[in-house]
């Protein structure tokens, strides 16, 4: 991976997985999708190339938010919903840290929704791993803002009556610059997206379709399950045509203003007709359309859906400070105390 952020100091030695393993017992349920996410992170961090002391892992509260205890970095297990705000402070205060955030659909989209949309809007350079298991795991099974409508949970005995958020749409509605969606059962897709997020300057959201085996088992199975994935998963890659299916025979095209599914070889459709993914496009229009797609009529889109360049908040903070230091006559507190109207009494 090519080194991205010149602010963050590189490691002089080659790091390995072991460098990031913590000595704490991992206490997630056996079969929880979180284990795979941890494995992906432990695989990605040594390869990013930063000094190991420059990683900082922040979380809120939830099963997912126990994450910092399980990776050996600097880190804070915060309070419920506030991980984005804590991360913002960490990154602004020390832009030389590579800041990662582990959070859940409750933590970031219920109680933490406001910090989530604001960190995105400001484009603070942090990488957010959003464990979307469509349930509140730690509190044992209440519906969350991503639970599909109609689902029976501990607090919706007759089925929920809430229209869920689509994380990708919310990210883009909040002026997001980076959004990827990955399944917890594909470590390759996960690590790829994490690398891309690390490279991206600005807030990166990686929505991980994570399985909660206890309270919302198989919630994502219709899409990412072995028996469904060929049919229902479209893995996009920048610069590549958007095709999927067992033999990559299906593709997306744009007809009028809407995306449409076609089959290559049928009705005269050729591979050249298929829409090519442009993750780096500034315009969120098509990215939003991609994020919205879902079975039965469409595949669900995975991979890096959006990765647009935009100045980061933390860089601009540094620039304003630099400019102020260069131009202001006030160089220290004594200067400040004595600035403006003062007089001597003798």
């Amino acid at each position, binding site marked *: 991976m090519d080194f991205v952020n010149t602010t963050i*100091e590189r490691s002089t030695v080659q790091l390995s997985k072991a460098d990031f393993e*913590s000595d*704490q017992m991992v206490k997630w349920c056996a079969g929880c999708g979180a284990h795979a996410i941890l494995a992906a992170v432990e695989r990605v961090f040594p390869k990013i190339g930063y*000094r*190991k*002391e*420059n990683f*900082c*892992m*922040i979380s809120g*509260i939830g099963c997912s938010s126990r994450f*910092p*205890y399980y990776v*050996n*970095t*600097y*880190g*804070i*297990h*915060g*309070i419920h919903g*506030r991980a984005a*705000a*804590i*991360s*913002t*402070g*960490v*990154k*602004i*205060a*020390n832009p*030389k*840290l590579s800041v990662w955030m582990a959070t859940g659909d409750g933590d970031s989209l219920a109680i933490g929704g*406001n*910090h989530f949309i*604001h960190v995105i809007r400001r484009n603070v350079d942090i990488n957010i791993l959003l464990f979307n298991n469509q349930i509140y795991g730690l509190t044992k099974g209440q519906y969350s803002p991503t639970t599909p409508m109609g689902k029976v949970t501990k607090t919706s005995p007759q089925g929920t009556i809430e229209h869920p958020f689509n994380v990708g749409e919310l990210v883009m509605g909040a002026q997001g610059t980076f959004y990827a969606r990955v399944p917890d059962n594909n470590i390759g897709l996960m690590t790829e997206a994490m690398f891309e997020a690390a490279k991206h300057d600005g807030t990166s959201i990686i929505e991980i379709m994570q399985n909660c085996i206890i309270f919302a088992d198989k919630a994502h199975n219709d899409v990412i399950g072995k028996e469904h994935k060929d049919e229902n998963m479209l893995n996009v890659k920048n610069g590549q045509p958007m095709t999927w299916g067992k033999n990559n025979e299906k593709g997306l095209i744009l007809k009028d203003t809407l995306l449409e599914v076609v089959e290559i070889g049928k009705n005269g459709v050729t591979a050249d007709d298929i829409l090519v993914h442009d993750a780096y496009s500034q315009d969120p229009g098509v990215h939003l359309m991609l994020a919205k797609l879902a079975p039965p009529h469409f595949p669900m889109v995975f991979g890096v859906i959006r990765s647009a360049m935009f100045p980061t908040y933390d860089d601009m*903070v540094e620039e*304003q*400070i630099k*400019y*102020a*230091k260069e*131009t*202001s006559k*006030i*160089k*220290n*507190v*004594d200067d*400040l*105390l*004595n600035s*403006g*109207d*003062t*007089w*001597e*009494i*003798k």
Partner: protein
Amino acid sequence: MPDTKRHIIEKESVVVKFVGDSGDGMQLSGSVFSDSAAMAGNDLATFPDFPAEIRAPQGTVAGVSGFQVHMGSEKIYTTGDLVDVLVCMNPASLKSNIKWAKKGATILVDTDSFDNKAIEKAGYKLSPLSDNSLESYNLIKAPITAMTKESLKDSGIDNKTAERSKNMFALGILYFIFNRDTKLAFTYFEERFKKNPKIVEINKIVIQAGYNYAETVEALESVIQVGPAKMAKGRYRNITGNIATAWGLLAAAEKSGRPLFLGSYPITPATEILMELSKHKSLGAKVFQAEDEIAGICSAIGASYTGSLACTTTSGPGLSLKSEAIGLALITELPLVIVDVQRGGPSTGLPTKSEQSDLMQALFGRNGEGPIIIISASTPDDCFYKAYMAAKLSMEHMTPAILLTDGYLGFGSALFRIPKVKDLPAIKPPIAEANDPDYKPYKRNAETLVRQWAIPGTEGLRHRIGGLEKENITGVVSMDPQNHQLMVDLRAAKVEKIADFIPEQEIDGEKKGDLLVVSWGGTFGAVHSAVKLAQDQGKSISHAHFSYISPLPKNTEKVLKGFKKIVVCELNSGQFVNYLRMKFPMPNITQFNKVQGLPFMINELTDKFNQILEEK
């Protein structure tokens, strides 16, 4: 100095208040006037008096804006209870402020503003200028608007602009009344409007015209002279409590070598601290205007973890919202300065008024057992030192500190003898050393019980902290019953031990006697003045003004025990008094409270003291 044949009255102190419509420029007149007083060597204190609305309808009582100046040739402790000279630019401002004028006070009114419509809008039936209701005052009726326009008729500016200078005409009259050189006012404009000579010129013309007018009218039989005060040598400036707070934090950052981070959300009356710090990026201050109070404090906690002097500033409702996160800061044992500029509550309450009713919230407003540092400031200039101490103690003892000021201190100003940063006490945070093989997140200094601050990026110190209870020393998550008890006790003991690092409680007056008057925070000036009056009358009365609230100074109990009676005076329904009762359950502690959004008046206090002293 004016060459006047009029009678000169020497005064030790005088209270002047400028009142008018929100658009009438009363804040500016007041600032120029107080600036000149300071230049002339007076001690002083000022207070602006805004309406709750930005610009409530013109001419109504709701839209009146004021600025009060208390200046003296003696030390000035308050912004003044009642007013000696009241400058009224319209009927509404007279209506709403006449109650603050001393009997016999000089009242200057702009008669041009007293037309029937304005009189009615102010809520008067008849013109107060003609119904003899102001008989007992020294009323100066001046056609200020007309004369302002007249004075500017050759200046080339339009009538409307000219009219807006009427506050300066009034100011000119005051310079005459106070036997003050108008050059002092000219300097004010010359320094501030270097780039706009036209503004300087216009203001000079109008001020001088006002002065000249006063010199020629008969109403002014005497002028008032307030001589220079005896003040300690040094360089001085005028400062508001909010600016002083901001600067105290900057000074602590510089002294400690820890970069300043502020995460804050605007709220009256604390917003000025945020605005002020936003200006000082040249000192490296990082200021994050957050989306709400919770993000403000949580960003600060993140910054604190990285080794910054992290702060958040707010007022009562904002402190409520920060409650949960204060718990996180205290259980992670991170430094954090929380400034609460108190205002009238509960709820939105009286947002532009002052009160001391957040003390209990500061002490107890969070779940679980969570003692932290609480410090209060006494005067606008003291805000500098107490903000500095809050930062120092918080960093050195690795626990959050709440600094309680209030709207009265925050907006009010006082003279500030400028210190040198090198003379301020050293600040030495317990920073962990790279690659310390013995580093453990919750290992503690045996004496202070303080854990170390291990800064992300440092080699060999990687660790995680968080809101779940942690095992002492190792910092791993622990649900162990004995460990929890230990940690609850350690966190409390750590804060208690800070008593070894703060000054003992002072007593103003004798150490034993009939009555000890206790106060804290922004009531210092009024209580001090009232006690002094009583002492001068020979009463057995002393004063203990508390700045350090949690922990209390070590000698607190001893201080209290020296007196037959104790009265705790507060601008709330009795919060510090109850805190003292918890700590020292003594039956002889009484209380005196006021919850009106207003400061204590000196005579209210002396009446109360006398009453207590007379009771058997």
